[in-house]
């Protein structure tokens, strides 16, 4: 496969010797225009890779912060067409920042798998994370996505044991997303010692970068995780900034998110990746 924007970005950061800051915000939260403004401001604030949530009515793996973000977006009229349009608009002004769409399978299935993949590719999407599509269902979306040149990023979890890891890594591209806890997004803080061991275990089985997410909220946490992983994902903390600034105009929410991203980015830029054991 040709090198994707995700591959390129992680390769650049490896040269620099620092971990990627991977941001997550929900498309259309709190409304289309503000959400697009937030996306446009993230790269200059320090986001290296951007995950964009596709809102779903029943986000079974998400905690309250991201549940509410999805509800705000849906209430404001967000749907899959608008999410893809948002990527298109972003991409017209930024050719380099990798975009990963993250969400659940049903809205894609209803959009039509083939049509979705073609439209996502055309809009400038680089990768997909679909929470409820395990490797057992690869033929449905993962394999067709790879054929179109999209990365399919798999979640590995603390319950993914050595027997299962090869199956999870097979067909994974771009990076591996290590879920740092057994739980939902934005829940308890991960135990960094265990995370380090898990990341090293995964790295022994793959050349792909490993990003760690679920429960990373502060600069300090991000730095500790950034010492052992190739990327740190921050999501719930960012959408919580939106939730806390709904009273103001869109600019207030946008500024709150970019401020936090800047802090995280500054923190991570001073973090040097330890060579994995």
């Amino acid at each position, binding site marked *: 496969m040709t090198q994707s924007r995700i591959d390129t970005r992680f390769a650049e950061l490896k040269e620099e010797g620092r971990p990627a800051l991977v941001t997550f915000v929900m498309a259309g939260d709190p409304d289309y225009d503000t959400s697009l403004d937030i996306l446009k401001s993230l790269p200059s604030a320090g986001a290296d890779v951007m995950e964009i949530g596709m809102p779903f009515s029943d986000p079974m*793996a998400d905690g309250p912060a991201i549940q509410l973000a999805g509800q705000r977006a849906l209430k404001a009229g967000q749907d*899959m067409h608008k999410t893809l349009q948002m990527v298109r608009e972003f991409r017209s002004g930024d050719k380099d920042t990798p975009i990963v769409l993250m969400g*659940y399978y049903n809205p894609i299935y209803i959009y039509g798998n083939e049509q979705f993949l073609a439209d996502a590719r055309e809009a400038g999407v680089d990768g997909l994370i679909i929470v409820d599509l*395990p490797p*057992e*269902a690869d033929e449905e979306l993962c394999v067709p996505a790879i054929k179109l040149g999209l990365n399919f990023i798999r979640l590995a979890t603390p319950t993914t044991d050595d027997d299962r890891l090869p199956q999870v890594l097979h067909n994974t591209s771009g990076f591996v997303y290590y879920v740092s806890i057994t739980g939902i997004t934005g829940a308890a803080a991960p135990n960094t010692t265990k995370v380090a061991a898990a990341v090293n275990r995964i790295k022994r089985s793959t050349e792909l970068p490993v990003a760690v997410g679920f429960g990373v909220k502060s600069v300090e946490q991000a730095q500790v995780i950034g010492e052992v992983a190739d990327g740190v994902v921050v999501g719930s903390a960012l959408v919580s900034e939106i939730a806390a600034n709904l009273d103001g105009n869109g600019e207030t929410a946008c500024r709150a998110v970019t401020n936090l991203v800047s802090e995280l980015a500054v923190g991570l830029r001073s973090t040097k990746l330890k060579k994995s054991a």
Partner: protein
Amino acid sequence: MTEPVEPNSFRAGPDKEGYFGIFGGRYVAETLMPLILDLEQAYNESKEDPEFKAELENLGKHYTGRPSPLYFAEGLTKHLGGAKIYFKRDELNHTGSHKINNCLGQILLARKMGKTRIIAETGAGQHGVATATVAAKFGYPCVVYMGKTDIERQSPNVFRMKLLGAEIVPVTAGAGTLKDAMNEALRDWVTNVEDTYYIIGTAAGPHPYPELVRDFQSVIGQEVREQIMEAEGRLPDMLVAAVGGGSNAIGLFHPFLDDRQVQIVGVEAGGLGLDGEEHCASLSAGKPGVLHGNRTFLLQNDDGQILEGHSISAGLDYPGIGPEHSWLKDTGRVDYVPIMDDEALEAFQLLCKVEGIIPALEPSHALAEVIKRAPKMDKDQIIVMNLCGRGDKDVFTVGKALGFDL
């Protein structure tokens, strides 16, 4: 979708990946996947294990009170003036519904797997009560997720669960009904995956749940086969059962699926009518999608967002349906029809008066369909309806709907 080919047997599913045709499967987060595979292995071992079967049968007999009677409803039959109507009286089970059949089976699996904590979701509260019951009997802590709306309309069952030692967690997300409770139970499970067993109450969810719940409920249909042969010397002409997620219905239907002379009817909650969104008729008015671990018919909008639905019966208030029912609809083996809230309410009252039985609102939907069909049938024809729950829990809801101040 292409027209499905008629299978040689309707009883062979699911395949080893958990599919009934295109329906079913295992659409879950990676954290749960290893556990689902463990559960499948534990279930496959147990269903071949004579000791497991013997223990379950023994519990069924002495704890639940099986076999439940197959009762000839003479009063209703006379009243309607058509086919002979039999009720499979699973409402006489311990805990008041068919739900206990499944809970006993699953608690034995939980014990076999070494789990130490039980969680469940509940709509009407019947499954929650049955789960709290088996957790109490086997000495497990139990957490039941229940939508806030359902807690309000099913308060007797909420108190029952508390008496049985369960912790009730109100779910305020969404409309606060069964689907939201199931989301929250899944979130608990993914967080406490090491020690927790999730007793799903209906024949839905990721494989192997639809299969194992069906198997534990199939005792209903197996008993009916024997009992109707004893009573009438032949199989019935028609089976009727209410379908929410579909566990009581699949339990009755499954042993008869290959008896093509037996017509089978599943009754969905038509709520206030199929024109708007105030119903739960996922088979009659939904389309295939993926939710809660399986592909099945779902009530959803054009963007794949799941709708809340509505039914007067909290137990039918679910926007999905077990995947095997979706397949049985697609293959045409089972007819699925909607019954409206007001039809179910009338049926509820009729049964109280002509048979002295207060049914739950869920089987009242099945009963309303029987009331429509029986008069058009010959007097020597036989209908068996699953009277899957008793109505004590619903008297407040019915009272309110009829304008009584209880």
